[in-house]
Each structure stands twice: as structure tokens, then as C-alpha cells.
């Protein structure tokens, strides 16, 4: 059940759903969506209630549109990432073999040192969902290279949550361990900052504390989500 929101937050939810906000106001509202489930629910509720305004305009697109869409599916970035994540999960469950092979890839193919230009826009992500074992909200301020991640729900475990960024190549890079409750501040290494861009995935796995940050995850993610820049 959603709790009653104060009036100004109720109006803010409607403003976000309608798209009235821009700049810092929009950033603030989107952050609130990630950190406050009752606010997010209010935004969803407005979207639901505005939905009938889309009624009455139905029109058939050209018949050759679906084949055109189907041709574009396999090349899409997320399709590759989806397969990579699926492979990761199977590998993680089967044995440590995949982790070992990922580590080998990292060792055998060292990345050349580059001058990295970080994206200049704030990035946010929600990791997990109400159904996932864990739920976290992250935001990243590229100017300071600091990622703040708030654990909203985390399963009890003797292991520690480790945060990973998975860019387009599908290879997870550890950003280190994070706290099981409250907000963790993660200083992102300069070489990793450019990976925190729109469309990259953040994921949490449970790992032993020893040896962190690890080269590769040893288990399936308990929460994952895409980064959006705002």
C-alpha cells in the first residue's frame, strides 16, 4: 500500500509523470523515485491515470514495420549484454570456471591506459526490484568520481555485497564492497569512470570479504539495473 504523500510531493509526482520538469528539478524528482518507493508509486499511479488520454488515436502502422524491427533485434546492444549476463549466470552456477576465464581475459588482455573523459551528466540506477532478492539505488556524480549507493533491502548473509559495473563488452569490473544498509560512498578509479555511462549495468553479488575487490564474480547477481544519465 502507498502511504499518503505530503501535498508538495504529490504535486511533484504529477509534474514528473507529465514531463513538466527539467534541469535540477527533474534530477531531484528522478532521484526521489529511486530512493522513495512511495513517491515512485505515486508517479506510477499518475501515469496510469493519465493513460486514457492516449485513447482514441489508434492507427495501424505500415505492414512491413514488424519485419524491419525483427531485423534490428539481434544487433541491439542489450541483446548482446543479455546473452553475456545469461552466460555469466550459468557459468557462476556451474563452477568458478567462467570467473577464472574472465580473470584470464583480464590478465591476458590488459587495457591500454587511456585519458578518460567521464560523462559529465549525473547517472542514476535502480538495482533489483520488489521481486529481486535485493533492492538498491545508486547515483553517480561524474565531477567528483563518487558513486553513492543506498541499500534499501538486502538479504541476510555472511557474505558481503560487491558492486560491479558491466559495460558493453559484458565483462564485470568490481567497484568494491558496499554496505548492507544505509548509504555507501564508492570512489571510482579514474580508469573505470568512463564505464559508468548510460546503458551500462550495475550489479550486486554476494562475495567473501577476503580478497575484495575481486577479479570476477563467483555467484549470480542478486540485483542488477541499468544506468541512466539525466
Amino acid at each position: 500500500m502507498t502511504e499518503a504523500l505530503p501535498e508538495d510531493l504529490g504535486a511533484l509526482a504529477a509534474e514528473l509523470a507529465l514531463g513538466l520538469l527539467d534541469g535540477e528539478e527533474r534530477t531531484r524528482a528522478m532521484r526521489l523515485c529511486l530512493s522513495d518507493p512511495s513517491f515512485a508509486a505515486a508517479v506510477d499511479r499518475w501515469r496510469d491515470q493519465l493513460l486514457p488520454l492516449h485513447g482514441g488515436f489508434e492507427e495501424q502502422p505500415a505492414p512491413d514495420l514488424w519485419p524491419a524491427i525483427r531485423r534490428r533485434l539481434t544487433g541491439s546492444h542489450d541483446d548482446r549484454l543479455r546473452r553475456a549476463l545469461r552466460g555469466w549466470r550459468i557459468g557462476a552456477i556451474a563452477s568458478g570456471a567462467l570467473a577464472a576465464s574472465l580473470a584470464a581475459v583480464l590478465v591476458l588482455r590488459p587495457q591500454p591506459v587511456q585519458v578518460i573523459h567521464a560523462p559529465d551528466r549525473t547517472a542514476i540506477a535502480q538495482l533489483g526490484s520488489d521481486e529481486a532478492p535485493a533492492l538498491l539505488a545508486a547515483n553517480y556524480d561524474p565531477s567528483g568520481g563518487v558513486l553513492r549507493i543506498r541499500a534499501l533491502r538486502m538479504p541476510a548473509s555472511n557474505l558481503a555485497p560487491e558492486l560491479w559495473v558491466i559495460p558493453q563488452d559484458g565483462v564485470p569490473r568490481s567497484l568494491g564492497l558496499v554496505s548492507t544498509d544505509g548509504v555507501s560512498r564508492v570512489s571510482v578509479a579514474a580508469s573505470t569512470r568512463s564505464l559508468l555511462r548510460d546503458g551500462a549495468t550495475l550489479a550486486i553479488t554476494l562475495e567473501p570479504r577476503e580478497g575484495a575487490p575481486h577479479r570476477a564474480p563467483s555467484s549470480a547477481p542478486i540485483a542488477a539495473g541499468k544506468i541512466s544519465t539525466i
Partner: protein
Amino acid sequence: MADVGAGVRRESLVAALEQVARGDQRALEDVYMATCAKLFGVCLRICQDRAAAEDILQQVYIKVWDRAGRFDPDRASPITWLCAIARNTALDWRRANQAPAHLPESAAEAIADATPLAWEAIASEQESARIVACLDGLDERARRAIHAAFYDGFTYLQLAQAMAVPLGTMKSWIRRALLQLRGCLGHD
């Protein structure tokens, strides 16, 4: 219009989106067949250009393919989620292709004329839709502004420029209207 099929359609859309999240192209085709007319209507209404709307519609279903795993049936109905993707993609296109740095003066009139025809079409199709009745109860300028925000992607700033009022005035008009709407829609 009592729609007994709505619940069934909703469930089958939720199930199809779960399949799409697992990479099932046939499930995406089912989603496309069930929703393309509606989403094409959303795109066309916003961008007013058939060829552009068809290109946008392709992007919409690629996004659905990529993001289906993020759809959460407990948070939103599938059609709300799909319409939000279509609306946002179409509004992005508008901003990239049509948004002038300064709105022309005639935009105020364009808003004043905000397509009463379409408005009537909605009302007659979904007479029971509470949102339509509630919007009708609003002050006319606030209703026009909300209409322009919803269909044309106008932000507060653009609305203030288009209707030639200070930003603070525009915000207070709309906030008052949103609170009134909230009461009318029975939030909380």
C-alpha cells in the same frame, strides 16, 4: 464501454513481456501485434509525421526488447509502461527535431486551440475515464497547459514562454490544478 477482455489482455501482455525478457522474439511479435496500433497512435499524435512516427515506433519496440526485464507488473500495467516508452521516445524525437530555442509567439495560440476534436474523441471513446472528467473541471488555462505538457512535451519553462506569463505564475497555476486533479482522482 465495459471491456471484459481487458483483464485477460493485461495478463497475456504481462506473460508475453516476461517471455520477451528471456529473449523470445515470438513473444515480442505478440506484444507488437496486440499494441502497435495504440503505440503508433501515441507516436503519431506527438510527432505529427507518419514516416517519423514509423521510425520512432521501431525504436520503441527495440527498447521494449531491451528493457522488458525491467517491467514490473506490480508497479504499472503493461500498457501504461508501453505507452510511457512510446510517449518518451516520441517526445525525445520532437525535442531533437522540432523544438525551437524560443517558442514562436504563435505557440500561445496553438495552445489556445489545443485540438478540441481529439479531446472530444477521447471523451466519447472513454466516457467513463475519470481523468477526462477531472480535467474538464479545471480552470481552462491550466487544462490547456496540462494538455500541451502531455501531448507536446512542453516543460514549465516552455509553457511560461508560450503563454507569455512568468515561470512562477505558470507553476502556481499548474500546481493548484494538479492538487485539484489529485483530489478529483481520489488519490490517497
